[in-house]
């Protein structure tokens, strides 16, 4: 198992490097111009000056290696130094976002907590809701609970978050006035009442995302349970006189969780990528919001770095999912 894991890790390194090159080159060739979003009153000569000051004058490969070095070494060290207070931050240039002219690493550090809170909780609640629904739906297939569950998850899955989000805002913010429609990123939890406010402002985006995630995962859970419920080992277990609870929750659930855990693990990077649309509707200033705004104004250093981080996360969690798979199901270990 260990050698398998190590082998996979070794393979992951060239994969990530190839991805970094592709990401960099694709964005570099993209036809956007960072000065395009400036007002037309700024003369073209001045725009040219701005482009030169952004470092667009150098050859592409030089810029790629500089960027790679800064992404993999300089920025992580700066971030670590900022978090721990150690004096390990190297001197020299950092990756500067074109729109803010400030280091990309600092902006990402500012954005991650919001994303983890909102999107992470949305994912967590989604799983907590989905698993019991999936289990009960499968166990009582075609019962009214299953029908309702199927309907709700179909709705949750097919209605986009930009619609549910706005409906939530209309109902809870505009009509009832219970919850704020905008996320206050400067809010600090100090005492009970500020904690209540934090719960209030986080409630709607988390609910929207939880609904969306739950509908997906509950379908997987149900399908996987159904596959297992008809297996011979279940009949054997029942024939041995085991209680229904033991049969379902110990034998069937454990086996059914194997594919679901994989799905959940592979889905974790999406927590970091943030839910771009949900973040925008509720004005949650997370990573997804940073990414989409950088794309709008052709801020390539920002887009390149965030995309690359996502790529690393996706490769990493795919690896984790594979390893988990082997741990959960000894039959499919690769060694």
């Amino acid at each position: 198992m260990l050698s398998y894991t190590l082998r996979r890790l070794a393979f992951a390194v060239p994969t990530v490097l190839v991805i970094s090159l592709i990401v960099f080159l694709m964005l570099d060739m993209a036809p956007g111009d960072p000065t395009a979003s400036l007002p037309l009153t700024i003369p073209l000569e001045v725009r040219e000056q701005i482009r030169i000051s952004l470092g667009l004058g150098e050859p592409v490969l030089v810029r790629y290696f500089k960027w790679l070095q800064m992404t993999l070494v300089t920025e992580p060290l700066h971030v670590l130094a900022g978090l721990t207070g150690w004096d390990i931050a190297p001197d020299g240039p950092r990756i500067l976002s074109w729109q803010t002219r400030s280091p990309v690493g600092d902006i990402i550090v500012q954005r991650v907590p919001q994303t983890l809170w909102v999107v992470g909780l949305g994912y967590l609640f989604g799983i907590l809701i989905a698993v019991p629904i999936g289990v009960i739906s499968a166990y009582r297939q075609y019962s009214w609970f299953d029908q309702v569950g199927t309907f709700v998850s179909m709705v949750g899955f097919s209605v986009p978050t930009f619609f549910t989000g706005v409906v939530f805002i209309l109902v809870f913010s505009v009509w009832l006035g219970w919850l704020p429609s905008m996320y206050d990123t400067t809010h600090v939890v100090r005492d009970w009442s500020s904690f209540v406010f934090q719960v209030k402002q986080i409630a709607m985006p988390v609910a929207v995302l939880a609904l969306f995630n739950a509908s997906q995962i509950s379908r997987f859970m149900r399908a996987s349970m159904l596959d297992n419920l008809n297996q011979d080992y279940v009949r054997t277990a029942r024939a041995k006189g085991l209680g229904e609870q033991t049969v379902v929750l110990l034998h069937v659930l454990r086996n059914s969780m194997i594919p679901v855990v994989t799905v959940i693990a592979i889905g974790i990077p999406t927590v970091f990528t943030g839910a771009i649309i949900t973040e925008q509707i509720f004005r949650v200033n997370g990573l997804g919001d940073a990414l989409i705004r950088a794309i709008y104004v052709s801020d390539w250093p920002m887009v390149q770095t965030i995309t690359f981080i996502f790529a690393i996360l996706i490769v990493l969690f795919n690896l984790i999912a594979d390893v988990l798979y082997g741990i959960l199901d000894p039959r499919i270990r690769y060694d």
Partner: protein
Amino acid sequence: MKTKIALLGTAAAIVLAPASAMAERERGSSGHLNIIYWQAVSTMNSYLSGGTKEMNAASVVWEPLARFDDQGELVAWLAEEIPTLENGGVSEDLTTITWVLKEGLLWSDGTDVTAEDVVFTYEYCTHPEGGCSYRDRYAGIESVEAVDDRTILITFEDATPNPYIPFVGAGAPVIQQAQFQDCMGARAPECTDENFAPIGTGPYMVENFRPNDVIEFVMNPNYRVPTQPYFETITWAGGGDATGAARAVFQTGEMDYAWNLQLAPEVIEQMEGGGMGTLLVDFGPLMERIEINFTDPSPDLPEGERATRMHPHPILSDIRVREALSLAIDRELLTEIGYGPTGRPACNFIVAPPAMVSPNNDDCLVPDKDRANALLEEAGWEMGSDGIRVKDGERLELLFQTSTNAVRQDFQAIIQQDWRDIGVDTRLRNIDAGVFFGSDPGSPDTYLKFYADVQMYASLFEGTDPTPHLEQRRCGREPQPSTQWQGQNINRYCNEEYDALWAELNREPDPERRQELVIALNDMFVQDFAHLPLVARGRVSAAANTVGGIVMNVWDSEHWNQAEWYRIEE
């Protein structure tokens, strides 16, 4: 000039507020203000950004020597008075201007503002490696000198009839030398701390800045007006979208001021029904137009000759065709559909300030398809069997491009139909704004290359003087291969009479004669149907009914009088 739609709440409050109450208002007495910019502010250093949002945010911290009020009139700000020919501040030969700072000015850190800071600002923005966005404000200057602690002498290279550009308006504020002296040139972007928390003379100081997210402002204890600012703190939030920002002001009341609400008219109307805020609209020089290509954009031409003056446009060089295209368009309808109360149909090249607007072209408001048809017949374009006109075997077919934007695509569809009615077939194309408005000479899709027959976008000019804007349409100023496709004579217009008249305007110091010349140039350009004005677009913001003192300003930052905003007590 001011069009404030449904500004009843604020207006009533201003009228009703008794004079004594105004006098009693104290510094910081209004508490907290919430502002939302759905396009979040990226940096506090407006010299490094060039965006309007950054300029607005910086304008509550950094201030210029003089700025424009809501009527477009110059007001002395950090300067004691506006230098003129009469008071001797501007030399007789128009080559120098002398500004004198107000007495006792302090930076927010308590140090003195001196003439050296002003000189430094000039050096900072004109540094050859700096990439300063407002560099053109300091163009044509020979030197900026500090005569004494409070006196600044600017010497221009030539006689300059309008010397009120450097250090005037929100785009050219004075920055502190002590803070920025190590941030010159290529080092400018590395000074993150300085760029995110500049020290200024304005009513507020940055307490906390998170790029593209939020700014927290606190009062500047050294602000020169002892009773101001009225709001103690400001949270300047960013992010979300325009709809969400409008909702937060009109319907939920979470925000007090929302900037740049470019929304569909029906959405605005519905939101206003929330009753908690009012829409602020004012019209400046921003105008949506169709540019007509005077050169042939045909892909059959070799690269380097395509869309250059070497090949005149085969169809659009005929003024009768251009006039017919203009006559077919229903500008009132376009305005109503696309902008509602935030737009006005336009018939002129120069749509503001009011004194400079020509009264001679208003007949464009009434579409006349019969006359358009007659003109096309006269020009030799015969109606074909499929309803599209033909001449010498060529169909009357145009490629119409613009940036990707819901309103622009609506406009394209409506105009396509209007033109079809007069036998013109239009192919539509829309290009991502980041590409279309880019200036990469390698891209074939920029508005500068203009590889299409007609294109639509909006343009404007800074300040109240349209001279540089009119200058753009001179012969030789068009984008062309020899200039790396840089230049703002987008439609490749070339008219000797126009050039001669512009030269006269550029020499003329007398304001009244200047007005006449601007109108004459405008009429020449418009009556040549060199471009088709469509809609004058307003600046649109929204304010909560509980905030008073807001004076919408299209000539400067919307926050030009931020110190005077206050909370209306119930």
